């Protein structure tokens, strides 16, 4: 196992959103605007990084039978820290993402990486895995959010692409649009994966 491989694993090969299909709840819910994708991705990456770090560090002191509650305690702590810090220093972003932040606790990506990776690997590799998975998740939901924002609202990062009053496909901003976009993206990514065999 090389360091570089661990880091890039989450970007494409095991992209948490498109390949592992974990954490679909936030992926569908927050991707109405590209900026939300980046904000949610950054918050999740932070939590993922620190939960992986601490779980890898403490893995020998975590009795197997109570590992899940202990993982959740660690994850929930970092989520609450993110919540408080965002509320204090980036109130605008917090307004946009506020309701989704507590949901990071139950984001399967984080618990999934703790269970599948951090509790079996060293601190160094767990940090790399956390960063890689976090960036992979951020890229994936930002891409999804950009597509939805462009088609549904005619804007990208709030910049208008169309003339005022131009008709857009509102469906893409609504929940069904999330499922449609998600479905197409999974299909495309898996097709590319087959062709290029990465």
């Amino acid at each position, binding site marked *: 196992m090389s360091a570089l491989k661990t880091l890039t694993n989450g970007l494409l090969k095991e992209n948490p959103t498109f390949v592992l299909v974990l954490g679909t709840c936030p992926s569908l819910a927050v991707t109405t605007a590209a900026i939300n994708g980046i904000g949610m991705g950054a918050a999740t990456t932070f939590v993922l990084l620190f939960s992986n770090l601490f779980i890898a560090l403490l893995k020998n002191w975590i009795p197997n039978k109570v590992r899940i*509650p202990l993982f959740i305690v660690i994850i929930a702590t970092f989520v609450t820290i993110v919540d408080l810090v965002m509320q204090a220093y980036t109130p605008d972003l917090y307004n946009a993402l506020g309701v989704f932040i507590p949901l990071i606790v139950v984001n399967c990506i984080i618990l999934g990486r703790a269970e599948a990776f951090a509790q079996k690997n060293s601190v160094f590799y767990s940090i790399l895995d956390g960063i890689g998975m976090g960036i992979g998740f951020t890229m994936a939901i930002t891409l999804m959010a950009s597509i939805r924002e462009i088609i549904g*609202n005619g804007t990208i990062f709030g910049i208008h692409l169309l003339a005022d009053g131009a008709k857009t496909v509102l469906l893409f901003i609504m929940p069904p649009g999330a499922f449609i976009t998600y479905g197409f993206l999974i299909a495309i990514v898996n097709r590319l994966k087959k062709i290029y065999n990465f």
Partner: protein
Amino acid sequence: MAKKIKSNLLTMSVTLFLFSAVMAAALGYVYSITKEPIDLAKAQKVNNAIAEVVPAFDNKPNEEAIVIEEGKLEMYPAKKGDELVGVAVKTYTNKAFSGEFSIMVGFLPDGTIYNTAVLDQKETPGLGAKMVEPSFKDQFKKMHPEKNKISVKKDGGEVDAITASTITSRAYCDAIMRAYDVFKKQFVK
């Protein structure tokens, strides 16, 4: 590498207790250092909204707030010298498309709407969320809740609803009328 500890009643209880205690302490610490910036950010938001919806003032309306429903329905009298120049009312509606939103409505002393500002909303982006844009909310300027009928045209009023977001537009009118009711009781003789 150290050996992984076994799962028995003692180790499970002790680890659960220790982890929870340490994490709780960490959270308490973060809470104590972020409390002040959080309060400041909240107050800043309210102050900005007040400044937007009433004419220039020189008192501190936030400190003279008249609370009707804690955190939801509050009035902030804006004064220049001793003269009342306007009243900002923080108001809410629960008829919104996504539950609730809260806005700030500014009245001149005679009850005319000076301006409105959105404080907190989670309406559908691209649809109801357009209520933050001037093309919708500027139409309330200079309207008077008793001389003008503040409801959407579909309901026989004078307000142009946002395209495909009649519910949000109705909710906005509802919030304004709630603000006017409390304003009237306090300031109109």
